[in-house]
Every structure is written in C-alpha cells, then in structure tokens.
C-alpha cells in the first residue's frame, strides 16, 4: 500500500499547526495592542475643527487661564465651551479680518453655534464631574495634558477605565494645591519632588479621600 502522505507532509502539518497557533497568538496580541494603541484611544490624534484654534498660542504664549473660556469647570460637571461672544471679546479688536476667524464672526452674526468636534469625550454611561476634581486639586493637565504645547488640540490620555482607575486607586501623586490646578508646567514639583512628597498624602487625609470608595462603580456609572 502506497503512502497517503509524502515525506514532507509532516513538516507541512507541523508548520501549519505552528502557523495557526502563531496567527492566533498574534491576533490576541494585536487585539490587546490595538485596544491600547492610539488608534483606539485617539491619543495624540488631531481632529479637524471649524476654526484651527491653538491652545499653544492662547494658553502657552498669551497665558490665558483655562477658566477664562471654560468658565463652569469649578462649579459644574461640565467645563463648558466658550460661547462665541467670548471669542469675540478679543477678536472684535484683534485679527478682526482674519479669514481663519470667519466661522466665528459668521456664528456671531447668524446666531448659529460653532460646531466643534469633541476631543476629550467619554461614553454616555460615564459621569465625569469637573468641579469635584478641580476642588480636590486634580490639575487640568492630569487628564488633558500639556495643551499649551498643542497647536491643535489632541487627546493626551487614553480615557480608558483602567486609566481612570489608576488615579482613583492612588490619587496622591496627582494632587496639587487648589490655586495651581490650571497651571500647565510643574517645574518646581518636577525639579524638587522631595519637597512635595507628602503633599498628596496630606491632602488625601485632609479631604477624607478614601481610594476604596473612589473605585465604587457608582462613582462614575449611574
């Protein structure tokens, strides 16, 4: 009786099995990697906006405080986007004819809001409250990154549940004095970490922050 398989069949079979295993492993690794990749998390991806607003220029160069435009960040869940007339407080004087600002002027004239594309957004079942984070001294940069280095705004952090939990499980290292939350650079804190090493721990005690309670599901999901 002749052989059913050639002598090479075994090699092929083993290669095949190995390939299947490899492909499977690669798929899993890829999926895992994809979920953490910036393609899925949109970290660092710039979105086209109706007006190419530069945080680098306004925050970094001009030094405008976050709260000048995002007025409700200290009192409300939402930080708030500036109404058109806030833009026009300056731009009725400066760059009045700039073509780049045409949509802003048009919005003011027509009464139609400027349709910004959201950069930092969470799923609808996640309830994030800006005011409590600000009042506990969580700085803007902790989530939004160095917007003063972003000519066009991009997401700075992955906004995954794990990322949220990282901080909720151990908030101390992120905490800053209340009056410093909108500061972008932490030169002193970065240069002399030993001076501030107890700050977070003390604030946790002062504010009665208990990480075990911060990770209750109802903290964010309702």
């Amino acid at each position, binding site marked *: *009786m002749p052989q*059913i398989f*050639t*002598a*090479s*069949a*075994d090699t092929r079979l083993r290669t095949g099995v190995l390939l299947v295993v490899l492909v499977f492993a690669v798929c899993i690794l890829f999926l895992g990697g994809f979920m953490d990749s910036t393609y899925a998390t949109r970290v660092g991806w710039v979105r086209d906006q109706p007006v190419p607003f530069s945080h680098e220029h306004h925050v970094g160069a001009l030094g405008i405080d976050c709260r000048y435009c995002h007025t409700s960040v200290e009192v409300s869940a939402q930080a708030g986007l500036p109404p058109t007339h806030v833009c026009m407080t300056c731009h009725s004087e400066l760059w009045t004819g700039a073509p780049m600002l045409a949509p802003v002027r048009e919005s003011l004239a027509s009464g139609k809001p400027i349709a910004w594309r959201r950069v930092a957004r969470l799923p609808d079942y996640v309830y994030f409250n800006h005011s409590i984070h600000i009042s506990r001294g969580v700085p803007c940069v902790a989530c939004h990154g160095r917007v003063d280095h972003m000519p066009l705004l991009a997401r700075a952090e992955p906004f995954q549940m794990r990322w949220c939990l990282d901080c909720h499980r151990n908030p101390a290292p992120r905490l800053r004095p209340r009056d410093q939350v909108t500061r972008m650079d932490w030169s002193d804190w970065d240069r002399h970490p030993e001076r501030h090493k107890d700050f977070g721990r003390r604030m946790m005690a002062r504010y009665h922050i208990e990480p075990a309670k911060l*990770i209750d599901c109802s903290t964010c999901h309702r």
Partner: protein
Amino acid sequence: MAEPGPGEGLFGMLAEFDQPDRLLDAVDRAHGAGFRQIEAYSPFPIDGLAERLGFKDRRVPLFTLAGGILGAAVGYGMQVYTNYAFPIDIGNRPLVANPAFMLITFELTVLFAVLFAIGSMLALNHLPRLHHPLFDLDDFHLASSNKFFLLVFGNDPLFDEGQTRSFLESLAPVRVSTVEHTEIPE
C-alpha cells in the same frame, strides 16, 4: 528509543504474524536474543506487550499530575488575584470566598490534567506522524485490522540484514519484509 535516521542503511526488518500470541512469543524471543531497538504493532492494545519490549515510561502520569497541580494553582490563584486586584463587595461575601472558589479550582485542575495527559501522550509518541517508512509496506495496513508485526530497527546494535532476517523467519511469521528508508522530507 530512536528510530534510525535516513542514510544509516536499512530502516529495519519487519515480521508479520496472524495471531497475537505469536507476536508475544516473538517479542520475548527477540528481546531474549538481545535485540533492544525493536517495536511491535497490533490492531488493539495487548496487555504487557510494551513491557516485554522494555517499556518503563511513567512520564504521562507524571505530566498529568503536574498539569493538575498547575491547573489548581492557576484556578485558585486567578480567583484570589482578581479579587484582590479589584476588590468589590458582592452581597457581603468575603473577598476570598473559598467554598465558592473550589469549584473553578477543581474544573481547571481537571482541564489542565487532561490537556497535559493527552498532550504529553501525543508528544512522547511523536504524533502526529503522517508519513512513515512502514506505510510503504503492502501488508502493513493490516496492522489496524487483524495482523501483528514485529520490527527490528536498522540501528539496533545486533542488526544485520541477513542474520536478522533469518532470526525473524525462525519465529514462524507469515512473512518477513525489509523496510527501506523513504525519501528525505523537505
């Protein structure tokens, strides 16, 4: 026991028997004659046949035990680790709820033990092996039906084409055939 590689002369010499008892006798006599690189083939497992060929391997049960221990550790460890990694109050039950955790621990013990048992069996038997020199022989397909075979490998120290053939023929087989190496795989 390693099969002879290609280029080492013949693959072996094969004797065919039509009764299992004959094969058992033949194995005893071949072993008694000093052959050590020998293998028997039968359509069903025959008690003691492998032992007569000098089989003493207990690795499959050991691997199974290892698998079981590993499974238990993985199962229990996983449950304890995950509950500490994200501690959540579930109906006021303890974080490490041992009675509840035993079930999955047991299941994974079984799963790993069986996977190791069967995996090690296949690996130690060098299976799958789709192409084999024996498959070239005309009558060998009866090894899965009603015929019994004894093979002396070409790499046995006592192997000599003529002498081995006459030795095998002395065992009253149906026939004796030489087994050639086949083509070299890619």
